[in-house]
């Protein structure tokens, strides 16, 4: 007699299988798993803005650069102290994280998407298109990204979107180069020739065959780009050319750090450390992702 059993090993449901696959990957890449956990914790920290502390991010609560665990004017507890205007650093860190994360995710998403399409089209079309596109890419790669970003944010205004577009330009050049070289080898393979022999259109070959096959490369480029974009945003804001106050970002929290450092080191240390931890965690995830998705690079780095 056959009885239904709840033993997962005997009747693997789909959810179970993907669950255990995820677990197996985590076991094999412990550093990546740690990175993922830290990233999720920080996301929760950012999303709980307004819940974790009772303070407003733009309200002066204490004297200049109140030390950590000190009390404000109305006896409020400032866990991480106050900044150069006496605003609660912990609250600001959470709100600033929203800006930094949105930029950190959107800029590489936009840049890598554009770069992927440009890279594939350039590789597939070849000839004069490839030659011309690659010249522009050459120029994009040889310009220091911050210089490009400065002009673009000034032109578009210091909005979050302006910064996103400016920083995405930095990613387009490099990522299109990488995707192009990947797509070049792909387009020589039999399956592309077979598709062409079957009469598939260029668009179909690009979107149904080449694009899905370069997804792994693009995904890795995206993850690497997130850390870079968060750092770049910080650099841009530090120069005063990023997201403008009163909207806080991790970068513009550091803008006045240098002048007010003497009143309390935590103004400079805390936002910088936050950026470092986030970028560190995301890099760990990116490294593991690269190992999993790109077998050619396995064992590197």
């Amino acid at each position, binding site marked *: 007699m056959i009885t239904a059993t709840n033993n997962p090993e005997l009747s693997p449901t789909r959810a179970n299988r993907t669950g255990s696959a995820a677990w197996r990957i985590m076991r094999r890449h412990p550093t990546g798993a740690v990175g993922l956990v830290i990233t999720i914790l920080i996301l929760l920290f950012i999303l709980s803005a307004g819940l974790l502390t009772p303070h407003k991010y733009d309200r002066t609560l204490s004297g200049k650069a109140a030390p950590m665990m000190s009390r404000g004017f109305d006896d409020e507890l400032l866990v991480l102290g106050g900044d150069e205007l006496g605003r609660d650093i912990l609250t600001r860190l959470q709100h600033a994280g929203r800006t930094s994360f949105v930029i950190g995710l959107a800029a590489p998403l936009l840049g890598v998407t554009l770069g992927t399409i440009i890279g594939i089209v350039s590789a597939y079309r070849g000839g004069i298109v490839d030659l011309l596109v690659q*010249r*522009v890419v*050459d*120029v994009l*790669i*040889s*310009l*220091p*990204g*911050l*210089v*490009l970003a*400065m*002009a*673009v944010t*000034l*032109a578009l205004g210091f909005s979050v979107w302006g910064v996103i577009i400016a920083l995405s330009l930095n990613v387009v050049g490099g990522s299109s180069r990488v995707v192009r070289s990947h797509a070049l080898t792909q387009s020589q393979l039999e399956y592309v020739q077979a598709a062409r022999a079957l009469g598939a259109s260029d668009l179909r070959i690009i979107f149904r065959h080449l694009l899905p096959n370069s997804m792994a490369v693009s995904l890795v480029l995206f993850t690497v780009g997130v*850390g870079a974009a968060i*750092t*770049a945003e*910080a*650099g841009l804001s*530090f*120069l005063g*050319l990023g997201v403008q106050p009163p909207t806080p970002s991790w970068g513009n929290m*550091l803008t006045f*750090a*240098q002048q007010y*450092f*003497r009143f309390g*080191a935590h103004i*400079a*240390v805390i936002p*910088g450390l936050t*950026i*470092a*931890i*986030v*970028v*560190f965690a995301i*890099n*760990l995830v990116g490294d593991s992702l690269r190992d999993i998705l790109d077998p050619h690079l396995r*064992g*590197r*780095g």
Partner: protein
Amino acid sequence: MRDYIIRRVLLLIPNLFILATLTFFLARVLPGDVALGLVAEDGSVIDQEAVLVIRERLGLNDPMPVQYARWMLQLLQGDLGKSDVSDLSVVHIVAETAEVTFLLAILSVIIGAAMAIPFGILSAMMRGRWPDQVIRTFSAVFLALPNFWLGILLLLALVTWFSWSPPIFQETFLDAPVKQFQRLILPAVAIGTSFAAVATRLTRSTMLEVLNQDYIRTARAKGLFPNRVIIRHALPNAVLPIITLSALLFAGLLNGAVVLERIFALPGMGVEIVTATSERDFQLLQGLVLVLGAFVMVWMLLIDLVYVALDKRIQLE
């Protein structure tokens, strides 16, 4: 080989043309122009007449294509024009500021490579053991630290604990090399550490690849001393990718230089670009960005050629 070199050098021409075009439009997308700023300096009420006069004098009233053509013609004559604000020649300003920026970048590469190559090799040789773990952890950590933040901390630590601040002076490197070195060493350490973080990982991975090759096994089997195998056989082949990386990262190094110049109050191109951008000094901005971009382009080309010359495995069509 010769054809390849000629092809690459010829490609510089369209690249420079696109770069010049891009810098022109990069400046023109900025909102406003220099005239308002120049007039507003004198008083709070903006004299519209004066604004028009300045615009006319600088040719800002001409249609965009005319301005573009003028910029291109000027470039063909090897002239970068005059700064709209200070009336100094752009070439002069570039020459004054380029020294600091390029010295800073070069010093950073040297510091970075001096850390990355020995650590990368050690890490590869000790693969899986504790020195490898320690080195990999450190490189992962330093990869995540924004280099300008490292710069701020370095500067502030020295200022608060030792009351030392970087010297401020006008002399050039040739006049006062020691002073210039003192001024550049801290920002160079900050940029160099970030560079070392990437380069260590790369050295390690190429070293591992090289150490697995047959000729290394042969050299070992012949009974050569392990150190000799590393230094004479493995290292030369592992250094090439590091050279390439340093070329690719050069634009990135200049990124770091832009911010660190600001922190350390260095009179470099980065600070000058920020000023030119905020003053809408189009001529100066175009000139600076063009020189910076062109330098990186030529640098990358040279590195590529060196690479081809050194690595016999590369086959050129």
